[in-house]
């Protein structure tokens, strides 16, 4: 239970960084922390104490002896999606820096309304 709570704390820390920080690099880092917290949550869901790696070696082993392999498959997918997001965010940050010469959102104020 403590582990789940700690994962939620990481998630909320990431959410805070993504929403409240004025530096867009810190926003990006916050998004990454959120992403990792969710992945960690998925690992925890599949974890089983003293579980074996999910590779069947003989037919007699009960399924409950293994950790749950499905969340691990989900994490791989989620990491790939996270990579695409990170690459795009980094590219946008570079472009914004070229335009404004700063990472500070307070100086990026061309949008209005």
């Amino acid at each position, binding site marked *: 239970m403590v582990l789940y709570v700690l994962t939620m704390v990481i998630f909320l820390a990431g959410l805070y960084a993504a929403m409240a920080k004025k530096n867009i690099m810190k926003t990006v880092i916050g998004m990454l922390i959120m992403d990792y917290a969710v992945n960690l949550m998925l690992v925890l869901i599949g974890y089983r104490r003293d579980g074996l790696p999910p590779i069947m070696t003989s037919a007699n082993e009960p399924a409950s002896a293994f950790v749950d392999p499905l969340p691990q498959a989900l994490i791989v997918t989620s990491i790939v999606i996270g990579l695409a997001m990170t690459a795009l965010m980094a590219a946008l940050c570079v472009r*914004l820096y070229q335009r404004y010469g700063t990472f500070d959102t307070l100086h990026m104020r061309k949008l209005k309304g």
Partner: protein
Amino acid sequence: MDNSQLLPLLIAVPLGGAFIIPLAGRLREKAAEAIALLVGVALLVLAAAALAGPASVYRMGKWPPPFGIVIVGDSLSCLMLILIAVLSLCIIIYALGYMKRFTARPKFYSLLMLMIAGMNGVVLTGDIFNLYVFLEIAAISSYALVAFGTEDQELEAAFKYLVLSGVASSFILLGIALLYSKTGTLNMAHLAKLISAAPADRVVQFVMALFIAGFGLKAAMVPFHAWLPDAHPSAPAPISAMLSGLLIKALGVYAIIRIFNGIFSVSGTLSTILIVMGLLSMVIGVLLAVGQWDLKRLLAYHSISQMGYVVLGIGLGTPLGLAGAIFHMVNHGVFKSLLFLCSGAVERSTGTRNLKELGGLCHRMPVTCTTCSIASLSISGVPPFNGFWSKLLIIIAAVQAASTMGNVAYVIAGITIFVSFMTLVSFVKVQKYVIFGKLPEKLAAVKEAPVRMCISLVVLAVLCVGLGVFSHAALRKLVLPARDAALDKAAYVERVLPEWGSQAVTLGEQ
């Protein structure tokens, strides 16, 4: 004929197109455009075939559910597919004319195809994690498309959109993870079965809260709407039309209908939350829209307001309300795409989208102005155009809800009518400043948009009128079957998991 084999093609064809277009574009830009057009036509044919056939289920790799991923084409999915196919084809034809002034056009079409593939995937999938994956495919390509012009404002809007939408995606993924830990399955039919069998507990409530925030952000409901008025106007006009007309529906509203009706059920607190969110979006969206002088920003605020109607209809929880919501979703897709395409035509010809600098275009740009008027009348809910009928259904549903909610229902219906009136006010403003009035001297030499752009404008305007005049047929043939498919949880489970039959499944055995 069993048309389940068609369903994966609806995702595979645009994905393949997204891959081939940049390669073909290296040789010749014309080839890239031709392939994009071809994919658009192919999608329309496939979607029409899927709609004509009976509901069907395709199992990826022949794995039996709930282990494998299933693709479910029921009436609701097929209605969304045909909407996506018609609008994307119109938008591709429009883009052939509009995108002339941009460089890197093959990349544009490639991203557009990727977005269509993602939306078709979201609409078709029967697996909740798969839904997340397709949602991200569509969302990531839309971030890139918002930033396509790479001007200051576009980059800024894209970053804002990316951060907020990325947070929404994290919420949704966390919700899916918790749902998996609770039930041990990702198949939506299986989830529906397990969750309706067990009493709602804290985990399910937390998951619902995460989904409301996540999909609410994707659908730009009011507490979460801040990105939309920046992102939608900043994109090139065809993409604005795509984002407002399709993306917020496929990613936000469709997912809300599918998940909250299909897996959970809309009642009690959830119903109240959806109604409040819908009303807030309607009122705040329209009040902010009236004050805008930027044409595209005004339209973007109206998207928030009109999506409010749809969510209100879902939140009422009655069959009539849901039918109104689905019909309004379709209608909004048509007239809002048309309005954004018109704004693109105006901007392309005059070089501005500030209402104060425009005026008197009705003689210079007759096609654009006629279609724009039709769309304005539709969105304001003037009979006999399509917006009137769907708004009427939602208002009737709100009044009928008085039997369960008491007098609050009349207040809701009153607010709905007031918002409709305010929408009319703000479009009268558009008419006055863009179409009628005095032509400024600067704009004396303005020309009508090219033929390819006009074709899509006319097609969409005909759809607006057609859906209005033949609203009864559209309701009976398209909307009511879709409504039944969304509401009938048991039939959905039966369709996806036929082997299981009436076999009792409880939370313990996984």
